[in-house]
């Protein structure tokens, strides 16, 4: 499951940013009109949809393999 590692690495990259957001010392994330909170929101959205599509693709591949084996 190579893609799992890939997703884990991407998710892990965001942990420090989210931790920073949770802590009180959030000067960076609140700078320039809190624009970086919008960036976090977009990244969460992107990651969520990508993970969903990866899982869907894996299921489809499984079904395709089944059909090919039956023929």
């Amino acid at each position, binding site marked *: 499951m190579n893609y799992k590692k890939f997703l884990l690495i991407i998710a892990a990259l965001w942990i420090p940013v989210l931790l920073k*957001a*949770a802590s009180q010392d959030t000067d960076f994330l609140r700078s320039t009109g809190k624009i970086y*909170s*919008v960036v976090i929101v*977009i990244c969460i*959205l992107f990651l969520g949809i990508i993970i969903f599509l990866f899982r869907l693709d894996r299921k489809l591949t499984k079904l395709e393999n089944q059909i090919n084996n039956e023929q």
Partner: protein
Amino acid sequence: MWWKILGAAIFMYVLIGGLLTPLNPGITAVSPSKTGTGEDLILSVTGYNTHFTTAKNHRAWLKLDSIHAVPAENISILNENTAELRFLIPGTLPDNEELAAATLILDNEMDGSFVQPSALFIQNSQTQNPASDREWQQYIIKDLSVRKSMGFPYRNILNETIRNTFFHVALWFAMFLLLIAGIYYAIRYLRTQDIVFDHYSSAFNKVAILYGILGLITGSVWAKFTWNTFWTTDVKLNMTAVAMLIYLAYLVLRGSSADQDKRARLSAAYSIFAFVALIPLVFVIPRLTDSLHPGNGGNPALGGEDLDNT
């Protein structure tokens, strides 16, 4: 195939539009925040996205109510985002009030007009200043400039996070459309017993649940930056979480039965009940009580941006 391209195009449009549309000018800070009557006041104003040095015709007012206002005597521009305004505060407050909150209105031909509500508190000072013979004039503010280009409305505290309306709010709209499609196919399945409709229904519902969970997470991040906590006891948050748990039980239900027809019938019936529960949880109950969400509990959304402001 065309709808895949359309989907990708809309997605790109939302990303680009949501990130590149500028935020309208606004006032982030005003100091001092309170003064006495009769004072000769220098008010330093910090703006956001303003064009103080580029614009030429600056005007400013302190507005007390619909008929009382005082224009700035002198406006000195320090840089693009800061300016110092000199006001001669009249000697007594109208109707002999002790304390009044004044709204600061700035206007120039590039940024249009923008306000800071309750920017300055004016206290009735007992000391008799030499200027205290000045009275509040009946002053009507008119000929305000209008900003030409389109932008996100500036709101205090929200600032740039108002862009999240393109992402967080759109997720919930998409979730509801998908759930309506899901319940439509659930009913069609129950009427025809055609298993294809069950596949449609479950696929719509699953994507809707994904969007709902993403909506909760993105809303939580947004709340951290505007309400200063990831989760509040806001009714809408809790009720939506309950609704999402009901829909998570839908997934559990589908996973629990191996028999295809039984699973299809059970989950179709369950999704109808879940949708019926969702409407009062998300749309009715938060409107009956106070909620931090705009548009709930008598709390206006962006109604001020309407043309007729109703």
